[in-house]
Each structure stands twice: as C-alpha cells, then as structure tokens.
C-alpha cells in the first residue's frame, strides 16, 4: 500500500502553510526519521520527517507552493515493489488564498510528525468578515494588508527606534524570535541589550520589569500567554497598578504587559483563560484588546508611550489574520475609544478581540433576517468607553454583549450594569450576554466548541432582544 504523506499541522491553530523545500527527490530511498521537506507558516519553519520506510514515489505538491491546507497529501511513499504509476493522485487542495506576508526564515527547526493523526479542521477559525476601514485616517491614505503578528512587531520596532528607553523582555522573545513570532527580527535590529530573553520566571521578571519602569524605563513585558501571567499577577496589580496612587503620584510605571489571551485551540483549561474581566477590575491599569491589525498596531504604539501600566491582550487565533493597516509613518490609535465596526439600527452588539469574529458574522446573518445590528468594537476594556455604547443603545434600544470569558462578573456583566444605571429608559429589552460557558475549558474538540460562544448564540440573543 503506498503511504500518503500529509501536510502536517505545526500547531493547533494552523490551517495552512507553505511547502518551502523538498529535501528528497522522487526515487530517493527514505527511512523513518529522514527529513524529507521543510514547511513554513508565518510563525515558524519546521522539518517534515518520514515515519514510513520506502521510496519517495511521487511529490504531489511542488516546493514553493503556498497556502497548502493541513492534511493535504503532499507526497507518496512506496513500499518495496510498489510502482508510482499505481498511485491515484489526488489534486492538492489549496486553502482560500489569503495575502501572505514575507516571512523571515526562523532559526527554529522542530520535527513535526509527517502524518498527523488528528484532523484539525474542527478548530479552524471562521473566515474573517469584512471590517470597516479604520476611522481617523486621512483620506487617500494607502492601506497594506498585514497580519496582526506583523502589525504588533512593527509597532514595537517603531517605538524602539523612537525611544531608547523602550525594551522587550520575556521568554523566547530574542533568539527564538518569539514563541508566537511576534518579536521576529527585533533581536537582529536592536541587539541583546534591548531584546532580552528571560528565564521561565514570570513572577520574577514581571517584578524586574516593574522595578525598571519605576526607575523610568519603558519595558514591554511579553508573557508567552496570559495564563502564565497569573504567576505574576501580584506584581502587576500590587506593584504596577497601585504604586502611583500609593506614592501620591511620585512613582510612575510606564510598562506594557502583552501576550496572547483567551482560548487558542485544543489547549484545555489551563491555557485557555480569558483575563479581560480580571484586569478590567483594577484601578490603575488600562486594558486593551484589539481585533484588527490596524488597531493592534496603533494601540500598541499608544500603549508603549502611555505613562501607565497597560495590559495588552492579544489573541493567538487572530495573530495570523490579515487586515488593512494604514501606511503612515506614525499611526496611533487612542486608548479608551471604542469604534463602530458596522453601523446598524436594530440592536447593538458589543465585542472586542476575537469576540468580534462572532459579532460580525452574526451581524451578517442577522442582516439577512432583516435585523440590522450595530457592532461596537470596544478595543479598550478599561477605561470602558461606555459613552459610545450608550449612544448606540439610545438608537437601537437593545444590546447584546459577546465575550469568550466566563459569565459571572464578566466584562459583559459590567456593561449590563452600566446600561441599567445610565441608559435604563432607552432599553426596550433586557441586555443579554453571550459568553463562554461557566466551565473550565475542555480539551475534546466537540466539548471545546460547546464551551465557547458561537455565532448562533449571538444570532439567538439578538433575535430574542428584538423579539424577531
């Protein structure tokens, strides 16, 4: 039986990748463990190893092919006596073409199994719906499509060029180029003095960062994920957030804590928590959670310049998503301002970060039902731009909040409370919250899907509050 070699997934969130290079050619003998090809994503380059012995009978996907969907057969290995001509060749399926940005080759080379046992399509993020162009950009500005990953890196690089007091520290940010490749190229440009690999020591390096900020430097502290920042939360809250107040305004703390927040895919309860509500509870912090690449860039630049401690919540699934970023020398987005991502008159949907995926998809579907939803992208969780929400609710009379975090004491709960206090007379229906389910994140694909909010949940809630 000829064995198909499939395009492997390098991570639970990978949907497609590029076939960078074949290291074996047709007719070569391969042994188990031989590296036969290199594949790359915008995150990493990895080697594909053979796990079967035989002859490389046929290469199905030539090198240089971009956007090869995970699990596509890329080659066939023949056992002794088998003939390539006997192989029925399936046509390689390319994923939907998405503008890919140039990726620097990563020094990382990790072996990945050539034939993944698990089909990962169940965890694929929904295609990104159309987003309105960024407001407050001069007319005629050119836009370039960038992934959020590139936008974040550009924001850091621009600010590091601008201000010698800005530096980046965290686990794997320098030589590895970032666990999620957000700091790619920074070590090469700025050197080891300003791009600092830390030991695995969240509590300690968060405190070191805060101490450096108290001395007037402007650290960007990357947490590999915000789940790990729980080890450091004392320094973030007790030291970073409170010292300015406790010192009567003497000691500032200009620091950005950033990294992926919330559920990625199939990483279970300890690696899937959404901390939006946690940090939004704390006076003395600002909490930012962008959805588009442009906002990611503009808000991160603003965050680095801000004299206060900023929690900058990114999302792993959004890292690879591309959207237009204005081509400006110094593009910043103000912290604390929500934006109307889609205007509507019938119901207000409030979301941020990956919650916008559900909200915008739902708005499209609702439109087909004759319900025009206004979608607000909060962008900043604290300070909360309640004015923009109220202005929208004054128009629509109805509101649904969308978040992946848990329901109790969530950001949605706060929005509901403030609407009841400040806009009660404008409400024509109870405000509903669409949230993650009140359980630790399960691992199994079907349960994980159930634990997360869905587009249908948002549609159902919007129909309930509009009584349609």
């Amino acid at each position, binding site marked *: 039986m000829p064995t198909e070699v499939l395009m492997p997934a390098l991570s639970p969130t990978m949907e497609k990748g590029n076939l960078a290079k074949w290291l074996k050619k047709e007719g070569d003998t391969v042994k188990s463990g031989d590296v036969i090809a290199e594949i790359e994503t915008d995150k990493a380059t990895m080697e594909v190893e053979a796990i079967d012995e035989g002859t490389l009978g046929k290469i199905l996907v030539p090198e240089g092919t971009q956007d090869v969907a995970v699990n596509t057969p890329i080659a066939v290995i023949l056992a002794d006596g088998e003939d390539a001509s006997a192989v029925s060749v399936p046509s390689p399926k390319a994923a939907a073409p998405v503008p890919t940005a140039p990726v620097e080759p990563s020094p990382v080379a990790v072996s990945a199994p050539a034939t993944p046992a698990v089909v990962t399509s169940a965890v694929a993020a929904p295609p990104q719906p159309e987003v309105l162009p960024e407001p407050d950009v001069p007319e005629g500005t050119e836009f370039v499509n960038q992934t959020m990953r590139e936008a974040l890196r550009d924001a850091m690089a621009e600010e590091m060029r601008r201000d010698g007091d800005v530096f980046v520290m965290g686990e794997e940010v320098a030589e590895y180029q970032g666990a999620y490749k957000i700091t790619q190229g920074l070590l090469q440009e700025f050197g080891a003095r300003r791009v600092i690999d830390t030991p695995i020591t969240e509590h300690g390096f968060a*405190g070191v960062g805060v101490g*450096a900020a108290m001395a007037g430097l402007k650290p960007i502290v990357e947490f590999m994920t915000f789940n790990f920042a729980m080890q450091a939360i004392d320094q973030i809250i007790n030291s970073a957030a409170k010292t300015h107040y406790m010192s*009567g305004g003497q*000691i500032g703390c200009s620091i950005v804590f950033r990294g992926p927040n919330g559920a990625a895919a199939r990483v279970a309860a300890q690696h899937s928590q959404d901390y939006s509500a946690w940090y939004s509870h704390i006076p003395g912090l600002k909490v930012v959670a962008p959805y588009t690449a442009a906002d990611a860039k503009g808000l991160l630049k603003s965050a680095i310049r801000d004299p206060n401690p900023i929690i900058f919540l990114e999302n792993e699934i959004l890292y690879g998503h591309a959207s237009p970023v204005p081509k400006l020398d110094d593009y910043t987005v103000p912290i604390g301002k929500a934006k109307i991502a889609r205007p509507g008159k019938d119901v207000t949907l409030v979301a941020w970060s990956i919650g916008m995926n559900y909200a915008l998809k739902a708005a499209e579907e609702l439109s087909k039902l004759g319900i025009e939803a206004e979608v607000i992208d909060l962008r900043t969780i604290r300070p909360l731009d309640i004015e923009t929400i109220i202005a929208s609710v004054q128009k629509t009379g109805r509101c649904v909040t969308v978040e992946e975090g848990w329901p109790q004491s969530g950001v949605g709960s706060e929005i509901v409370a403030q609407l009841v206090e400040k806009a009660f007379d404008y409400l024509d229906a109870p405000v509903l919250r669409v949230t993650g389910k009140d359980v630790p994140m399960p691992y199994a694909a079907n349960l994980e899907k159930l634990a997360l909010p869905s587009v249908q949940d948002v549609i159902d809630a919007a129909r309930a509050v509009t009584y349609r």
Partner: protein
Amino acid sequence: MVVAAKKSPVSKTVGKAAAPKAPAKAAAARSPARRSDKAAAVLDFSKDDELDAYRRMLEIRRFEEKAGQLYGMGLIGGFCHLYIGQEAVVVGMQAALKDGDQVITGYRDHGHMLACGMDPKGVMAELTGRRGGYSKGKGGSMHMFSIEKGFFGGHGIVGAQVSLGTGLAFADHYRGNGGVCLTYFGDGAANQGQVYESFNMAELWKLPVIYIIENNKYAMGTAVNRASAQTDFSKRGTSFNIPGEQVDGMDVRAVKAAGARAVEFARSGKGPYILEMLTYRYRGHSMSDPAKYRSKEEVQKMRTEHDPIEQVRNRLLEKKWATEDELKAIDAEIRDQMNAAADFASADPEPDASELYTDVLR
C-alpha cells in the same frame, strides 16, 4: 559569623553582638563564593564617624518611639512596624552609597527612609495620613517613596521588593550609569519564591544589586529555625554563585565595612552580593503584636548587651570623644526634632476629599 569572628582582633565585640544561636554549622560546607573570612573585618571609626552614626541611629530610634506613642494615641492607623533595635543596618549601609544609588525595602521602612535623608516630618505625616506626608496621606506606613532621595518604597507585599529592586538595578545596568540598588528584605521574605527568581536573573545578567537580608530572628511570630531549612541566609545565593556573608548587624562598623565591600563588588560590574545582617527587633512585629513567641529575657539581653546605639555611645565615652553632657545634648536636639515632626503630623490637615480620585493614573 561566630567562626569568622574568631579570626579578627575585634572578635569579641563581633562575637558577642551576634544574635543568639548564630548558626554554628556555618563553617561546614562553605562555598568558595562566600566571604565570611572578611565578615569580621570592622572598619576603624573616627570620632566623626562614631558621632555621625550615633546621631543617625538615635534619630531613627527616637522617631520610632514617637511613632509608637502616636499609634497608642490613635493618631496612626493600620499597621505600624517599628525598626527599633535594627538601626545599625540602614545607617551602616547608607554610608556605602553615592548620590543616584537606590534603596528599596519592605514594610518595616521608617528607618530606611530616615537613613536616606527623608524628612521626619513628611514620614510622620504620612503615618498619620495627612496631606503633608510623602504620599499625600495615601500610602501610609508601608508605602512611601522619594525619588529625590533614591528611596523606592516601602512595599507591603512580603518579598515583592526583591524583584522590584532587581529591576531598579536592571535600569542602572541598562543605562550604564554606575548606580547600585540596595534591596532590603527580612528572614521571612527570604523564603518567597520570587527572591530566587530574582537572584537567578541578577547573577545571570550581573546586575548591580546588593541583597540585604535583615535577619531579626522572627518572621512575624515564627522563629527562623521554624521556617527556614537553611538558617544561614548568606548561603541562600550559593546555587546562583552569588557571594554572601553574615554580618553583625548590631555593630554599625561591621555593617559599614561589609556594605562598602558589597557595593564596590556590585558597582564594578561583578553582579549581585548578599549580606545577611544578624540583627534584632525589640518591639513586636507590629504595634498589635505582644510578642509572646519569645521571652522577655531574650529581648532584655539583646537590649543590654548588644544595643547598636549603646555600643557607639560606650565607645565615644571610653575614648573620651564625647562627654555624657554632649551626648545628652544630641539626644535632646533629636527629641526636639521628632517632637516637631509629631506636632506637624498631628496638626497637618487630612488630604482634601478631591484627592480620592487623583493619582490613579498619570
């Protein structure tokens, strides 16, 4: 400590001053990084040195006594941790610093602030929660700062200041400004995990930080040997290759000598240094602590035999560098100063209500 003391001509002073039950096994497995051989080297103090140390230690003592009094009168609220007994540590260490160096400590911080040169009025007014306090009355006893004097707090979370102080030293290193950071913490904080996370980074990056472990024998009510598997805190950096030494923290001369060595080491780019100060607090952990976990005799013995201020006073008198009257005059002057601070702290108005919402963000 005890072992090291034998090698020194001043061994008697040093040996006696060692707090009760100084770990006798210190001599056993000593790492080459340790410098205990130097621990007993005590600087010869000139007349001016002695008089200066006497005055500075007495300022702290009188300030703390006054604070205890105001606490008893209900003028100071919350927690109030007095430094009485430990004065030689901060006074000796401060002598090793230059302008631009930094100091950070935990919640027992009044002595550190005065040693840094902060105004007793501003410190006392913060204790009473008044607008003229260093934090405008918003920080209290445990949370005061003075960038001007290089004092970075005043931190209420036990051990947090160790990472923060490492970060202050990181900033010195980043800027290449030749500064160092004195990072103080107690024998209790020494068991916090982030202390070792910080040790690791400080040595890895050769940060100019001096870790001063003020071992006053009790972490609140828990004696050192009930909380620490290794009670020789100078060895706590051994696995990170950080040199450490035990110092008689009741002898200001020993502290100053050790401080000078440690600061020179850190300032010259060799990385962090650990000084374990063997010291003793006479009062309870805080004002509300009756200190039932130790005997009155133990406290009394320390007070009569090892008091840091009495040691200096006795030397001044012995060497006829000062008369009883002259020392009394200094004391009277300091009492006046602290009375003035207390008066200010009692009369100064509370912060304006509008201050509630200021200083949350910049």
